[in-house]
């Protein structure tokens, strides 16, 4: 069932209207650019890492409701986690939004509100942008801006 309420759940709309951790961290351990050229979504993710743990994370940018809400929810989900935990969460989240409709979903708490994206293949990149940007931000070596194209 690909209906609107499944994609634009109330939690998503709320995070779109009032994104959490929508600010600049200066100085940050890493500031990473992410860009989806297909729709022009663009964000900068700021991450502060201490002893292998993400002590602060925030973002700035513009994008569709899905990409903005996903970034907002992600910052809440990974703040305080270790980098390894964040990477594992990336894998689970990526699986959730790309698995075939109808297949079992991983238990991801609040992030599960984005599972409806898998019914909308054209919107998977919107939900994934912030996460791909995070993955690059916590990588060993800095990378060029992340593109989901």
């Amino acid at each position, binding site marked *: 069932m690909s209906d609107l309420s499944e994609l634009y759940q109330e939690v998503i709309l709320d995070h779109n209207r009032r994104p959490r951790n929508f600010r600049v961290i200066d100085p940050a351990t890493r500031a990473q650019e992410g860009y989806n050229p297909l*729709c022009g*979504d663009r964000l900068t993710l700021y991450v502060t890492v201490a002893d292998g743990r993400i002590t602060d994370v925030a973002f700035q940018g513009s994008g569709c409701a899905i990409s903005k809400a996903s970034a907002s929810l992600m910052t809440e989900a990974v703040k305080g986690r270790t980098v390894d935990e964040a990477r594992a969460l990336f894998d689970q989240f990526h699986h959730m939004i790309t698995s075939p409709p109808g297949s079992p979903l991983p238990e991801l708490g609040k992030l599960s509100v984005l599972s409806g994206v898998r019914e909308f293949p054209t919107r998977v990149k919107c939900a994934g942008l912030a996460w791909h940007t995070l993955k690059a931000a916590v990588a060993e070596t800095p990378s060029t801006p992340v593109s989901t194209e």
Partner: protein
Amino acid sequence: MTPSTAFEVGALRAQFPILGTSVHGKPLVYLDNAATTQKPRVVIDALVDYYATSNANVHRGVHYLSGRASDQFDQARATIARFLGAASPSEIIFTRNATESINLVAQAWGRATVSAGDEIVISAIEHHSNIVPWQLLCEATGATLRVIPMSDAGELDLDAARRLMGPRTRMLAVTALSNALGTVTPLADLVAMARSVGACVLVDGSQAAYHMPIDVQALDCDFFVMTGHKVYGPTGIGVLYGRAALLEVMPPWQGGGDMIASVTFERSTWNVLPYKFEAGTPDISAAIVLGVAVGFLTGVGLDRVQAHESALLAYGTEALQQVPGLRLIGTAAHKASILSFVIDGIHPHDIGTIVDLSGVAIRTGHHCAQPVMDRLGIPGTARASLAMYNTREDIDALVAALHHARKVLL
């Protein structure tokens, strides 16, 4: 349908099978015509008919089918020559699409003509396909790309254009109709400016060719490009019109079969026009069917299509502005077929998804015109684009879907 009868859009719609289908359980409202148009039954049937009755390679065999396919292929070229007002079918070269046509000119004409210090002039409202081939040429030759600026409304600045063109200008390459904004460019003025400095002119007719009558000789352009799938024809086929005198002196672009007169290991010589620029087996079926599509469009009558779409554009412009927070992007005085817009607080991509679930197909994003979006300071737009079969009901469905999108997201 004779020219004297009213424009009967209902009868016309009945000729397009896909317009009778549903998406997401809703009747399809197709408003993404600037990306590609839907195909009438006569075009779909011609494609099947070719493979069922005429399939053979062209200009090669002595057998019956090869002759039949070759005749149809040649007829298609003649039909397209008439459609564009070319002096001769030999000025019509088949390519894969308008992009390939522009690349052909940028490479074959450009490399033989352009050198360091020369200038190529394009405009701020070009599609990427009329920007990047010229950038490649400039990189290869040391020429400079100059860009005619646009106003906030999307109109080209003719005074600036006049200042940009000078003795080093070798080419003016400009669209006839902006795909992102709907601006109809003042071609007569621009061509006159280019002529006054001795520059060549290429007109990108990708969007214009299915909205307004074209006469390349009246336009006085040297090259005119179009793509098949936007004139109700198949994908995979495009057209380059080139003035014969220029095509004659241009070197070949790609080498291979068909484009040669003779081949030895020491030296090859080139075939006559248009074959010099058509290496290898072409998309024969698509070329033949493009001839059918152009015949269909001519039968409906481009002047009548233009009148219908113009009235619909006015209706749509009015109707969209009733949507709270909606701002039209592209408000040139002379526009055609394109309704690009943004809505306060809603990203174009979300608009696209929500109206799609109401059965309404529009395009969202930068429309392969990123410089236009950068100039206007927006990430992209939502774009409804019209064709001959669209109706006021289609516009009404879009407007209703936009109200719904606002309800969901705001």
